[in-house]
């Protein structure tokens, strides 16, 4: 691996760990929630509930998975 590739890899790893942390499920839940908010908003429907519902589901999923290990 070249020095540039190593640097890029460690840079990516730092930001991944800084932002995502232990479990990517939560970030995926947040992203899905925000996408649903945008879709509902574009359709002129109430959208405020979508984000909390999606991240709560992601949190439940993540906790359940952690409890099995």
């Amino acid at each position: 691996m070249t020095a540039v590739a190593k640097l890029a890899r460690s840079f990516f790893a730092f930001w991944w760990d800084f932002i995502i942390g232990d479990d990517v499920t939560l970030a995926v839940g947040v992203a899905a929630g925000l996408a649903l908010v945008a879709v509902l908003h574009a359709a002129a429907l109430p959208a405020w509930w979508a984000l909390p519902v999606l991240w709560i589901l992601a949190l439940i999923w993540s906790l359940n998975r952690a409890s099995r290990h």
Partner: protein
Amino acid sequence: MTGWVLFLAAFLACAVEAVEATTVVLAVGVTRGWGSPLRGLAAGIAVLAAIVAALGPAIASIPMGPLRLIVGALLLVFGLGWLRKAILRASGYKALHDEELLYAKEVEAARKAGNAGRRPLMGGDPYAFTLAFKAVVLEGLEVAFIVVTFGANARNVPLAALAAAAATVITVAVALVVKGPLSRVPENSIKFAVGILLASFGTFWAAEGAGADWPGADASLLAIIPAIAIISFAGVAAMRRKRQWQVTAVPAAPSPTPEGVPS
């Protein structure tokens, strides 16, 4: 967001980061001498100042909608990560991450590292310098992030910065008084509370940035914060029941004492 809510949220969040960084610097300083850790501390503060100076004006020039979406999403992901860990710790699924344990680990790592690889540029002890520098930059970056995002969203960066400064000064003052691990600070409980606050503000800002209109506008935070607190405590209760059931089904499994949730 009212002033005192902004101050409290920024103060608590920054206090957690300050406790972690201070603990690392203390552990390294006590075991390997204070010269290099203090140089690492100074270098870390200098890097942080440069980052904040670069970040502040950039964020101020970004439109509020995209800013709320991005920083709200980041805060929400951070907050959910903290909440997840706090719930797992409180229900016995994860070992407690207290400052005494962190202090002991840093002391052990510092002793194992010995004095090999001395370099004068880092004050004679590159390991101590790097540990202190890394802790200050990483934790300080989170403090800067909290100050800039909380402050920019509430249109009151000076108050958020004041809260961060107060949290840092108080933490360092406490560290100087106790001169040991900051285990007296109930870090797990603080993290639980901060996780709730970060998730609440993150949910509010990110959804608003994505186009949602909250019922009651800013006043909806008064409902969001307690709602997320209730959900979190319900999560702890459910996970404790599940843990209890698993321990009963498999008697050999370890059963740590649940802690970390404010009573």
